[in-house]
């Protein structure tokens, strides 16, 4: 239906540039030279950061050397530790995908290509700053020393799983390491991080909060509520927005990425914002440290867009070959974070191929040992899990009558299915 001579309206539905089989040309992606971006003081006016929301903070150059004012000046030992944590994360991911294919668990999500966003962030924050991760920040847990075997126990949902087999694999919780319980509902952790940061400020504490989400889930209302609250109360929080270009099969255009950068969201809220090369571990470290120092100085929240690439599928349930060109990953202009840091260490004379090979073997052995130890506690659907009654615990602090009744029913059903099983066993390992 048209009205007179008015033009017919048309709907724009975004379309990613490179579907399967397409040739890839990243020439239109603006990648500025490393070291060119100014570094304002941490306590600057938020407005002074806003040009950086449309730029890209980079430290590691094509010559594999660190450049410019954002160079965090880390010593070689710290850089080697960073490299090792990223390599360990990648080795862990590889082994867990294999375990999933072997039927030891139902599900896994790799962070390949995005290791710097989690590992360098963890290293830039204070150890007791509270982090609210999304689901692809296993590097945080690894960098903060959460035991690998506990991660695998959780992934195998076995009797040693600290979360009692309740959560989908990789939805860890690590209070001791100041990492918040991971939710499967996207972006909910953003306002929670703001609330935690507000509480810290209310109590006159010195700890800050930091949250993660992906560019896709920045479309959720929670993201915008969180930024509003953080801006209103000047909350001491560092927002990490990991723009890995893909939300399962939907490219960043479906989150508004065709219009402007994600860091530019900060401009509208009047908070500090930085857009950084997320595959440059030194840029990640420097930006997060800058934002953390800013928050700690009561100068307010910062939104950091980590511009990176999801090099693998969304999860073990996903095949990215169905919807995007494989050439995207191979030709990604920002490279790979582990490779770039390794080349940097070699360039400054602190590393060589032999040490790299030895480290790779060590981290792989470390992961294998953790998997072996976890397997002794059972794998999903094979053997040992938590007792039936634990299903009813922690719904509330104490069991109300209706859960007591339902718990009896569950244990009754177990007797029906396995008459030989004794009541004593339920107090122990269950079946």
């Amino acid at each position, binding site marked *: 239906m048209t009205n007179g001579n008015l033009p017919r309206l048309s709907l724009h539905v975004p379309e990613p540039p490179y579907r399967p089989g397409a040739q890839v040309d990243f020439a239109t992606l603006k990648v500025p030279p490393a070291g060119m971006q100014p570094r304002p003081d941490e306590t600057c006016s938020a407005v002074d950061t806003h040009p950086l929301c449309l730029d890209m903070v980079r430290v590691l150059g094509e010559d594999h050397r660190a450049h410019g004012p954002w160079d965090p000046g880390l010593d070689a030992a710290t850089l080697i530790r960073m490299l090792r944590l990223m390599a360990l994360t990648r080795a862990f991911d590889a082994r867990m995908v294999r375990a999933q294919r072997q039927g030891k668990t139902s599900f896994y999500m790799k962070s390949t290509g995005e290791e710097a966003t989690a590992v360098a962030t963890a290293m830039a924050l204070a150890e007791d700053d*509270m982090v*609210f991760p999304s689901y692809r920040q296993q590097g945080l847990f690894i960098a903060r020393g959460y035991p690998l075997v506990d991660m695998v126990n959780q992934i195998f949902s076995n009797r040693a799983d*600290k*979360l*009692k087999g*309740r*959560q989908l694999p990789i*939805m860890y*919780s*690590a*209070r001791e390491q100041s990492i*918040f*319980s991971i*939710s499967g*509902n996207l972006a*909910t952790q*953003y*306002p*929670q*991080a*703001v*609330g*935690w*940061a*507000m*509480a*810290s*400020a*209310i*109590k006159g504490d010195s700890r800050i*909060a930091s949250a993660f989400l992906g560019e896709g889930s920045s479309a959720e*209302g*929670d993201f915008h*509520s*969180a930024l*509003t*609250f953080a801006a*209103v109360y000047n909350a001491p929080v560092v927002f990490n927005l990991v723009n890995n270009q893909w939300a399962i099969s939907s490219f960043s255009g479906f989150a508004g990425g065709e219009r402007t950068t994600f860091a530019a969201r900060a401009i509208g809220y009047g908070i500090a914002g930085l857009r950084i090369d997320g595959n440059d571990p030194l840029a990640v470290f420097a930006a997060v440290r800058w934002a953390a120092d800013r928050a700690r100085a009561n100068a307010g929240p910062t939104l950091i867009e980590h511009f990176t690439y999801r090099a693998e599928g969304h999860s073990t349930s996903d095949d990215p070959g169905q919807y995007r060109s494989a050439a995207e990953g191979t030709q990604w202009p920002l490279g790979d974070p582990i490779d770039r840091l390794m080349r940097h260490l070699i360039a400054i004379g602190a590393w060589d191929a032999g040490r790299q090979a030895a480290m790779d073997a060590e981290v792989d052995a470390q992961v294998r040992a953790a998997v072996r130890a976890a397997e002794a506690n059972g794998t999903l659907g094979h053997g040992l899990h938590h007792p039936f009654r634990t299903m009813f615990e*922690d*719904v*509330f*602090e104490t069991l*109300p*009558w*209706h859960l007591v009744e339902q718990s009896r029913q569950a244990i009754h059903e177990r007797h029906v299915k396995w008459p030989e099983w004794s009541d004593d066993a339920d107090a122990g390992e269950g079946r």
Partner: protein
Amino acid sequence: MSDTTPNARRMSMIEAINDALDVMMARDCAVIVMGEDVGYFGGVFRATAGLQKKYGKTRVFDTPISECGIIGVAVGMGAYGLRPVPEIQFADYIYPGLDQLVSEAARLRYRSAGEFTAPMTVRTPFGGGIFGGQTHSQSPEALFTHVAGLKTVVPSTPYDAKGLLIAAIEDNDPVIFFEPKRLYNGPFNGHYDEPAVPWARHPDSLVPAGHYRVPLGQARVVRAGEAVTVLAYGTMVHVAREVAERQGIDAEVIDLRTLVPLDIATIEASVNKTGKCLIVHEATRTGGFGAELSALVQERCFHALEAPIERVTGFDTPYPHSLEWAYFPGPVRIGEAFARLIAA
């Protein structure tokens, strides 16, 4: 209690709620109050009047108009160790915060195996009778009673409002605290065409000073009787009781006070005694909490029942503005249900 009880005074429900917040803020510096217009102004219903002046702006503050944000930050504050008491200005506005309540606050203890908890008491006025139209009159309690991990509380008197609110704030699980806004200033008996009665003349408006708890999960027999059991909460406790007394029915009126956890023992004992059960709520009928109550009574008291269980509820429509009193489950609807039960 009587007017001569020491350290007790007559209060409206809104004053009793304010007093509970005052008592808890004075006792526990982890208690903070936040919500739309709750700070300097003291809330659109005055529930938080005077609190910001007394406890300061970092413990009592206004928030952006974002229920998702309000509940979301409350989860983070609870995880930090505070005891937030967010106000949602009307229960009708709570839906943008639903994901943070249902998927987050309610599940945090479970999903983290007790590593993190989200103690919070979400206060929110609910129910009709004030010409609020469809967006200021709803009773959405059944949406919350359906969620594992949430407690749902509804006071019906000033005394209970204070004691239940204190118990809710001290509880380590998230609590949705529905305040029947028609009862804020008087014990409404359903006869909207009669002069309003203030709380001052009601025995349960005598509220002790200081700290006391009305435990969650304990119903109250408001009126003992032999002929029929009435299960109600909030405004409908007063309405159902008034109908029974005007019709001369020896009803046992039970104020549930807490829907989850439910005081099933008190319900069973009463229905087993009377053999008849009338369930009354203001919320819409289909899938309402009355359906749960009806199923429980049938399952647990079937052999004592002498008549079909009666449910009196709001209609399955939005709450209309001009036809508010035609919608409201008032004396006619309740009276006829009583009559059917008595005749059975």
